[in-house]
């Protein structure tokens, strides 16, 4: 695509990880029997009054700060009016012209290049209910079944500027955004549970043009992969329309995952008129600078910055550093273990190898496993000193995961201690060499690969406890000295 430049902007909805809803004390827990997390406020019953959840505002500010936004000291809530059964009140409490967070930016990387996307705004609003379409068809009219457990869960909507230039960038941006939000723990960001959702705007313009083309909004994007595919499809479709001299109309299209196409949902003429007006039931939201500063002080180092620091400070590759900083817990674990085992490369290999495998198999998260960073450091020191082999080390790590015991104790109990006593090893080696005189001759005649055979025999004799490096060295010395 050289004729057109693609312009993409995103709107991301994120459910905040508060315990209770944004305007009432109902639980935000996922699931539950339908309509069991409801009260007069989230049901919109007459006479009920909403009160803002402080934690929701704190999380929204935290997200704003992480995305380099300025936080408004004065913001307000507005009613967005529309009739749809997912709203109990026929309006959604949102923020219209004075949102909480403004004018930020977020960096992300793709194929080794760093890009920046400006954030237009982040506003706070309430989640809508969920409709479960029933198959029953009574007298020709179909029904929807409504569950309002989700209604009133706090949401932030993050709106980007149209700074994204290709579908793959949209995906990379969203992955970075998700990582950032997970790092600051404001949301669990589970797309499959709907706690992170994204709509995309896309338009094309001739290369060199500075004016935007007509944009199309795409909804119903349920995974990052779907977003990339839908944008790729739409990019192609719009290019073809323009190539044939056609016109793109401003409209909302929905992504059909099965067919891999976007389909018109509604045109601009049918667009809702939301008739926003200030929410009279809620006073304006005044945020003191001291509160913002307090929240700022709790912000952790974000994944991209941390990855780059890992590369710089620990001399790790980009790939290793990204794996290690994929979650805050793993990165913290690495840095804590490094204190007692300052060999970053080796530590990284273990953490992204056997440790990651065991963690994955256990279905636990790092804070839930009994292995402490110091334990892993101790184990790696033991392996490095040659007291046990790497294979034995992996076995010990597995037992540490299972039992929570310290490595030294497991090694003792299992009799894993490696034989690094030269005298003891020489005895075993002499015995093996005298058992295989023909092989000794062949080795001495130049059949180098037989060295492995001798080492194998020694390992077998010592039940794997011999220090393989040492065995190698002793055998080579003996056989070559004999000549």
């Amino acid at each position, binding site marked *: 695509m050289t004729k057109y430049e693609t312009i993409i902007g995103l709107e991301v909805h994120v459910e905040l990880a508060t*315990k*209770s809803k944004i305007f009432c004390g109902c639980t935000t827990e996922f699931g539950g*029997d339908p309509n*069991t997390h409801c009260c007069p406020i989230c*049901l919109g019953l007459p006479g009920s009054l909403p009160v803002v959840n402080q*934690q929701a505002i704190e999380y929204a500010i935290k997200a704003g700060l992480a995305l380099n936004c300025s936080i408004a000291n004065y913001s307000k809530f507005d009613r967005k009016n529309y009739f749809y059964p997912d709203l109990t009140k026929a309006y959604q409490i949102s923020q219209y012209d004075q949102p909480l967070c403004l004018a930020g930016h977020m960096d992300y990387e793709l194929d080794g290049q760093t890009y920046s996307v400006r954030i237009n705004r982040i506003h706070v609003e309430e989640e809508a209910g969920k409709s479960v379409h029933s198959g029953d068809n009574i007298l020709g009219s179909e*029904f929807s079944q409504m569950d309002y457990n989700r209604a009133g869960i706090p949401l932030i909507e993050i709106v980007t500027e149209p700074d994204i230039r290709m579908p793959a960038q949209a995906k990379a941006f969203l992955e970075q955004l998700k990582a950032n939000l997970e790092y600051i723990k404001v949301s669990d960001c589970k797309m499959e549970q709907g706690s992170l959702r994204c709509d995309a705007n896309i338009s094309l313009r001739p290369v060199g043009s500075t004016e935007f083309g007509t944009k199309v909004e795409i909804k119903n994007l349920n995974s990052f992969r779907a977003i990339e595919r839908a944008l790729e499809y739409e990019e192609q479709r719009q290019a073809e329309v323009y190539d044939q001299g056609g016109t793109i109309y401003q409209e909302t299209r929905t992504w059909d995952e099965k067919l891999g196409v976007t389909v018109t949902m509604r045109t601009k003429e049918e667009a809702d008129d939301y008739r926003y007006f200030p929410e009279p039931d809620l006073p*304006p939201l005044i945020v003191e600078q001291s509160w913002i500063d307090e929240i700022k002080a709790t912000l952790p180092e974000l994944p991209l910055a941390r990855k780059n620091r890992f590369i710089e400070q620990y001399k790790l590759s980009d790939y290793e550093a990204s794996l290690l900083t994929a979650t805050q817990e793993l990165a913290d674990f690495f840095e804590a273990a490094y204190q007692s085992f300052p060999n970053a490369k080796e530590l990284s290999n273990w953490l992204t190898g056997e440790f990651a495998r065991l963690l994955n198999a256990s279905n636990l998260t790092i804070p839930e496993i009994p292995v402490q960073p110091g334990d892993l450091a101790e184990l790696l020191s033991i392996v490095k000193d040659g007291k046990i082999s790497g294979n034995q080390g992996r076995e010990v790590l597995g037992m540490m995961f299972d039992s929570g015991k310290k490595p030294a104790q497991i090694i003792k109990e299992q009799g894993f201690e490696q034989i690094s006593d030269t005298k003891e090893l020489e005895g075993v080696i002499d015995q093996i060499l005298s058992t295989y005189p023909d092989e000794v001759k062949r080795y001495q005649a130049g059949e180098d690969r037989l060295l492995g055979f001798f080492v194998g025999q020694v390992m077998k004799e010592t039940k794997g406890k011999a220090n393989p490096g040492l065995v190698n060295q002793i055998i080579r010395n003996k056989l070559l000295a004999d000549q």
Partner: protein
Amino acid sequence: MIEITEIKKIADAARINLTAEEERELQGYLSQMLANFDKLRSIDTEQVAATIYPIAVESVLREDQVETSLDIECVLSNAPESVKGYFRVPRIMEE
């Protein structure tokens, strides 16, 4: 005078069905109302901040604490129809 097409649009947004007679009646009322706003608009408010809230209350926030929700019977007692714990409503064609 407000146009009849405008009246139709407002009625549609509010999901109200009006007869032609009601539309004309409302045309009169709303036009009168708008004329009153025109009078207000003639006052110079350049130096006056917009009043959104009638009383001066700022930032009332609550702790993030879970409280007991209503019993399901209670929740559904105002539902026009319910099935298996869900509110049942006419299906809206969209999505």
